């Protein structure tokens, strides 16, 4: 799968991983902006702006954007995280030109007053929708408790008050500063005509002003929870308790992040892990999982538990025991090998889907200006050693004082 790269004079990077056998083309813009780049006054702007991008440009009304995507049979969507805003479309190869044309024009949106007010209602509904669902805000509150004043402590969606209070002028200014060619990547994967992609980029994005985007608020990597201890969200009607707790782990630049991921598979994968056999297989927990998540300057081990409210204390203790056993006794070679095989299989199967590769290639480039092929990713998994995993267990203790939140009916203490 050849990798191709060209940088436009204004700083926009155009990259592609091409595949001869792919029957589809995925294209996307990766914008290095997310909730960590907001202030309190702008809380939720990145995600709200992602919605507004679909409401049209000065020349193209929003409903025409939707129609044009459907005309080309595109599968199109976008997402916003703490660090990225990503827009993508998957199309048949003959639609590459049209798809790139439309997505690129969308990056310079109209941000009309009336669209802003209507879409604000949709965002408020999205906030309420998630608030009505498990884990009932526990994840966001736990992140805030772990990160404290660090920019990663701010939730992606914002709050009802921050969204209601946001003026359209602030969003226009945010867009002008953050959607600069130097902080965006146009990426493609699958059956890509790269010369045509570069030509499209030059024509559509070549005149984007090379604004210097403000430096990202990167601070010292948090090694401990800012607000350790347990907080509670009471939802009297909830059937289960939803507990989440977070301790520090390796960040995106730490070579040990791969071993951290493997460790999370051994301990807390959705099947066959120590938490699975210890809590889920017995039917005592609805879910018990351990996930490693990394950011530019921080990493987390996140433990999620859902169970009957009466059992939350006991099962939390049992998970602590499972972590303590791992810390003292390590991981067995057989467990290690199984987890390695699982990860390798995910790399190969995921590598067959151009959409999935678009995200991997786009985010790698956006964050680190590096390209890793499926083969590279496979070698990374194969080169993890049991010693690496044991080093992670020592360096990043899972039984460190955690930021913890339990949401549920409130009878569980």
């Amino acid at each position: 799968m050849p990798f191709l790269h060209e940088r436009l004079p204004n700083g926009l990077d155009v990259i592609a991983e091409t595949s001869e056998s792919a029957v589809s083309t995925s294209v996307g813009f990766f914008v290095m902006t997310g909730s960590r780049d907001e202030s309190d006054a702008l809380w939720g702007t990145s995600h709200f702006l992602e919605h507004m991008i679909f409401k049209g440009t000065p020349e193209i009304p929003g409903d025409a954007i939707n129609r044009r995507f459907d005309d080309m049979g595109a599968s199109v969507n976008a997402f916003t995280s703490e660090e990225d805003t990503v827009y993508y479309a998957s199309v048949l190869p003959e639609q590459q030109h049209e798809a790139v044309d439309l997505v690129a024009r969308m990056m310079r949106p109209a941000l009309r007053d009336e669209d802003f007010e209507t879409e604000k209602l949709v965002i408020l509904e999205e906030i309420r929708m998630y608030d009505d669902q498990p884990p009932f805000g526990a994840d966001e509150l736990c992140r805030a408790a772990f990160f404290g004043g660090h920019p990663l402590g701010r939730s992606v969606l914002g709050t009802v008050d921050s969204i209601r209070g946001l003026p359209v002028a602030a969003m226009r200014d945010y867009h002008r500063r953050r959607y600069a060619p130097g902080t965006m990547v146009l990426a493609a994967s699958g059956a890509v005509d790269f010369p045509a992609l570069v030509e499209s980029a030059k024509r559509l994005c070549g005149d984007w002003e090379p604004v210097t985007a403000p430096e990202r608020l990167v601070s010292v990597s948090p090694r401990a929870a800012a607000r350790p201890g347990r907080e509670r969200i009471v939802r009297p009607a909830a059937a289960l308790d939803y507990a989440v707790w977070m301790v520090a782990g390796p960040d995106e630049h730490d070579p040990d992040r791969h071993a951290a991921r493997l460790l999370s598979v051994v301990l807390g994968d959705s099947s066959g892990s120590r938490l699975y056999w210890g809590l889920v297989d017995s039917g005592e927990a609805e879910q018990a999982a351990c996930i490693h998540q990394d950011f530019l300057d921080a990493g987390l081990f996140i433990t999620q538990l859902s169970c009957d409210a009466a059992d939350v204390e006991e099962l939390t203790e049992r998970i602590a025991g499972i972590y303590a056993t791992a810390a003292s006794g390590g991981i067995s070679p057989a467990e290690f090998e199984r987890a390695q095989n699982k990860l390798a299989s995910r790399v190969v199967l995921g590598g067959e889907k151009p959409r999935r590769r678009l995200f991997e290639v786009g985010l790698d480039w956006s964050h680190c200006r590096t390209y890793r092929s499926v083969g590279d990713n496979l070698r990374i998994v194969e080169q993890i050693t049991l010693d690496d995993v044991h080093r992670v267990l020592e360096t990043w203790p899972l039984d460190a004082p955690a930021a913890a939140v339990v949401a549920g009916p409130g009878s569980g203490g």
Partner: protein
Amino acid sequence: MKQSLHSATLSNGIILVGERLPDLESVAVAFHSPAGSIHDPVGKCGLATVAGEMCLRGAGVRDSRQLVEDLESAGVQWSQGVSSTHASFSGAMVARHLPDVLPIYADILRRPLLPEDELPAARQMVLQNLAGIEDDPTHRTIAALRRIHCPAPWGMPTEGISADVESISIDDVRGFVGHHLQPGGMIVSVAGRIDWDDFVRRVDDLLGDWPAVSSAAVGVGPRGPFVHHVPHDSQQTHIALAWSVPPYRDDASHEATAALAILGGGPSSRFFTEVRERRGLCYSVSAGYQTSRDFANAVCYSGTSAERAQETLDVMLAEIGRLPGTISPDELGRVKARAKSGLTMQQESSAARAGAIARQWYHLGRLRTLAQELERYDRLDVAGVEGWLADQPPRDLTVVSLGRDPLEVRCAIPA
């Protein structure tokens, strides 16, 4: 592109369907046994689901743990699920592991240990899942819709009912598995980097001498009321609607699915445009097609703040009522473009293709090539869709809401 589709029937009736996708490294295999929840006896709702779970708790020479560990050592991304009609055991993996993995699946199907000491855990796992569903308002709304719209046993929740699940005994499980997990009506599908002849030989060796038993027909009970409200303490009210449309094997299903896609299938659909984009009433709104072999339903859904739910329902009903006589060629063109590109992109996923060919065989008793599927879309025209809508306009709607207050069905659609 020349498509490589295959089918074979073993002497005991097991159907094998396959597609060779030589550009992929992976292979996906799925065993669909006709042990679905429509066979749950009255008072034992959830038995099929408990039985499906029990099949993984030891089979052949492997205990529960060894079974999962052997699958995962081969890097198999495995899953087990029960629908109203089938219990399905499936896995996706790097192709070279398939020969080692097939005997494990054969054990699960033919030699499940069904150990009595694992039953409390299996039951408890199903009960945990039911408690989780209690906290998922969208799932509950759709389940409530199904419960009253579809006659029993089709409308009964596949996941089970807590009181019934608690009463399930090991004899219930063993009886169910003995009757229903059997070769008659079983479909085995495979897609990806396969050698078809070798696959047929291996499956025949593993399952070919498994004797078939006859299964009893399913009786059908009455349906529920047309309007129903589920009280729930939440900020949002959830709305679900359903009416009957032709099943997949009926030629008219093509026109029906196109009409539903125009109504609520994509970002330019009428629901998305009128409910979300113009009025900002909700985050999610959709219309879709859900088919069984002998019947199918149009199913619409939206969730919105309690105070805006009535308007959301009113707009959805108005759009459903406005559908006949107003389909434009552009709208249909967009539906065709989306469907054709979706069909083509399936070729990039072994799991998607294994699923698609199994469904085709179950509904049609044969496989359609991609070229035939695309050609059907080429033939679809406005006159056909309008003709179908004139013949079978949306009527007899079932309306379910879940939230604080019930809604009023101010409906211009014939009941």
